């Protein structure tokens, strides 16, 4: 019994080391979304393409899709745009855009210039919807299922590697529904 107790400090040390070692590889700037498995927050905001038309959360229902939060002032959004073009235009995956705290005029010009991978774009000039969604830094990319439930959030650039991950998740979510 006594021999057993002699090892406790050592075991505690190992446990602490594993814990701290794991911490070395965690990115503290990546926060989990508080809205996972919750419905997309309700909103009434204009569409970027037809400023007279008001969109709502109902526009984001119907199929498993990506929602991309972007702005023309955001440098990383420009970096990932090509990848989004590939996903939206080549692979034909529906991507909803959320134009976050931006000038709609500039946003339209940007889409004209760099091509437009989005099926729908909602204009959130005030950042109110962004706040309800817990957006803390563009770009952010969400997976929304056919019922308009938020299933996943990725903060930062969507690279090819990230897209493969997102794609896998989208396939799982779509398969869930059919089952």
């Amino acid at each position: 019994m006594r021999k057993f107790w002699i090892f406790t400090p050592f075991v505690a040390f190992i446990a602490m080391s594993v814990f701290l070692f794991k911490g070395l590889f965690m990115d503290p700037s990546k926060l989990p979304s508080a809205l996972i498995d919750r419905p997309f927050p309700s909103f009434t905001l204009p569409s970027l393409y037809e400023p007279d038309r008001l969109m709502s959360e109902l526009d984001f229902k119907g199929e498993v899709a990506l929602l991309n939060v972007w702005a023309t002032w955001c440098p990383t959004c420009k970096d990932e745009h090509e990848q989004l073009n590939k996903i939206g235009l080549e692979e034909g995956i529906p991507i909803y855009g959320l134009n976050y705290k931006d000038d709609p005029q500039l946003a339209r010009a940007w889409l004209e210039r760099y091509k437009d991978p989005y099926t729908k774009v909602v204009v959130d000039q005030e950042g109110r919807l962004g706040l309800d969604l817990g957006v803390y830094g563009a770009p952010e990319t969400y997976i929304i299922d056919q019922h308009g439930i938020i299933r996943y959030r990725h903060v930062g650039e969507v690279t090819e590697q990230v897209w493969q991950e997102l794609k896998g998740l989208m396939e799982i979510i779509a398969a869930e529904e059919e089952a």
Partner: protein
Amino acid sequence: MKILKSLPFVLLLWSCMTLASFETYEFSTTQNEMRYFKLSKELRCPTCQNQNISDSDAPLAADLRRELHRMIEAGYKDEGIIDFMVSRYGDFVHYKPRIAPETYILWFGPFVLLLGGLSVVFFVSRNRRLRARKAQEAVRETVDVAPSVEAADLSGGLSEQERERLERLLQQDK
């Protein structure tokens, strides 16, 4: 010349002015204003990681301050405002995390460790005391037993007075 000399000083004042360029809000009551300052120090800015929203000049922090002001003036209670923020940004946004199963280890962990440490100290000292007593008893036994067993030898070696003195000396150490 005089103007030139005072220029650095004027520039210094000016830099302070630009630093304090945060928006100012009007409050209907002083109490609301106090709540605003208290809550803006408790809420953490999600983009800047380790600043509260009153310290940060990130655009998101400004949005959260605007929202905080709106909610306070609209008559929301402190808990309502915190819930609003936590439901959007997660527990991360509040510097004082709520007490829930996933934060138990955070809140109670230190006390558990303290209790553990105290119990270790208790058991170690008790063991030491028990061992010391056992050793004393062993000594006393040899003293009690020795004269009868080796009476012949001892009676030859020690006089009655000497034995008494030895007994006293041994007792002293207890």
